[in-house]
């Protein structure tokens, strides 16, 4: 029996797919099992009240998936996260686009942007709290402060790095400014804008959890405090795991969008 070139390629690709699955699924699974074993060894050697082994955490995790209070706590925090992130995007993307295009405004804004990037935003939380009290508004403002610089900077970068050739070509064909925006600048910067959304969301999430755990506990913070005060270690770890899973899913979705718009 002989194979055609096409067939042998398919065979080769099939073997490749198996290798791919091993690398992408099996290897991380092995790491997870090793980590769980080490964790269990640590928990059992400590015999601490505050710790739960991997099996207990997993059982608590499954239980929490069907617990309305857990989802309510998550959603309560997610409202602030979504509003704050939405505001950061609505404000940050236009700012990034404009400063990327208009050098004078860029010069005006650049120093403050640099400061925002290097300043730990957490230090501003007490000020926000004093100004707005223990409120959802304060939570939202904190999320915006965490996310905004990371939305603005990549968006600006996306516009600044638009190829000079495209701009020349557009000018040569008589593109007006708004046509340039619609047909060249925004499509050309789209990949960077989505990257900004991804980074911004990651920082918004950090902001939301930081503010919940340290100052204004109305959602996940409240539940974590309850689990801590009742020494429900397995539930606490499971809830942290659930928050991580939610973040991973959200970031994964944004990565998918980014892959779609890749130049």
């Amino acid at each position, binding site marked *: 029996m002989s194979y055609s070139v096409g067939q042998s390629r398919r065979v080769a690709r099939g073997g490749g797919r198996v290798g791919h699955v091993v690398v992408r699924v099996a290897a991380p699974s092995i790491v997870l099992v090793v980590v769980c074993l080490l964790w269990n060894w640590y928990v059992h050697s400590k015999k601490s009240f505050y710790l739960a082994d991997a099996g207990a955490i997993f059982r608590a995790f499954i239980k929490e998936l069907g617990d309305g209070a857990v989802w309510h706590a998550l959603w309560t925090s997610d409202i602030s996260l979504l509003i704050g992130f939405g505001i950061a995007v609505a404000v940050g993307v236009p700012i990034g686009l404009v400063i990327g295009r208009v050098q004078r405004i860029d010069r005006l804004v650049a120093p403050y942007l640099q400061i925002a990037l290097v300043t730990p935003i957490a230090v501003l939380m007490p000020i926000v709290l004093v100004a707005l009290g223990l409120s959802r508004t304060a939570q939202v403002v904190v999320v915006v402060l965490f996310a905004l610089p990371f939305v603005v900077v990549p968006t600006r970068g996306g516009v600044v790095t638009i190829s000079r*050739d495209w701009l020349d070509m557009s000018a040569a*064909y008589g593109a007006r400014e708004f046509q340039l925006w619609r047909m060249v600048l925004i499509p050309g910067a789209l990949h960077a804008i989505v990257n900004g959304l991804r980074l911004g969301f990651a920082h918004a999430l950090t902001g939301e959890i930081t503010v919940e755990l340290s100052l204004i506990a109305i959602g996940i913070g409240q539940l974590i405090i309850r689990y801590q005060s009742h020494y429900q270690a397995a539930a606490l770890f499971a809830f942290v795991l659930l928050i991580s899973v939610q973040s991973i899913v959200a970031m994964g979705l944004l990565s998918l969008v980014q892959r779609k718009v890749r130049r």
Partner: protein
Amino acid sequence: MNPTAKPAAGARLGARGHIDVDGVTKRFVAARGRGSQDVVALRDTSFQVRRGEFVSVVGPSGCGKTTLLRMIAGLSPIETGRILIDDRPITGPGPDRAVVFQHPSLLPWATVVDNIAFGLRLRRVPKSTRVTRAHELAALVGLTGFENHLPGQLSGGMQQRVGLARALAVDPQILLLDEPFGALDEITRRQMQDELLRIWSGTGVTSLLITHSVDEAILLSDRILVMSGRPGRVIEEISVGMSRPRERGMETTQEFVELRHRIWELLSAPVGVATNADE
């Protein structure tokens, strides 16, 4: 027919052509505080291109050829002298001119058809009309079957064909070609030259080609403008008297060889470097 040559440096214009370049000087001012001097890219450059004529500009690197083309395209301001299109001074890019760049500058997220129709979309041509026109142009430049491909899926030569089609799609009166085949391999380059000859003979659009290739200039042009080294100016206009349609094989004719020799002699003159100290 023997090629005729005449000096052109500093010549002032008489009867108007389609493109009139009149005493153009271009100086690039050095950034302040960097210790460098201003650069005079072009000095007192004058020539005409008649309607329907194919003119090439050859010259050493840095002689201001591309600067000249950018000024005619309206992409670079004219500070000294003037450039007229149909007796009207250039104030910026216009619908009468289209540029084919050395790098095709295609939008990577747009299909071949959308790239070809780019100029038409800017001019608010209805979608159905511009798509039909783009398909026609794709066929004209030999890209049938690739209409829905993205630039990244095309070879360099095919990308340059898209660039050419994009320029022709807007039905320009003047085609400005800035070393369009400079980045292509020799085989593709020759194919593209043949394509350009075929397309140009069908449209008769006034064309100005910037090129480093003497053979390309002779093959394609009615007239060749030879520029000096920096600061560039037209030191000689050479009429290419060879009959059209031009065909492969003419490179070995005595006429072609003589022209090539003459142009290389002119180009072999020492290259000067001009700064403000020369003024």
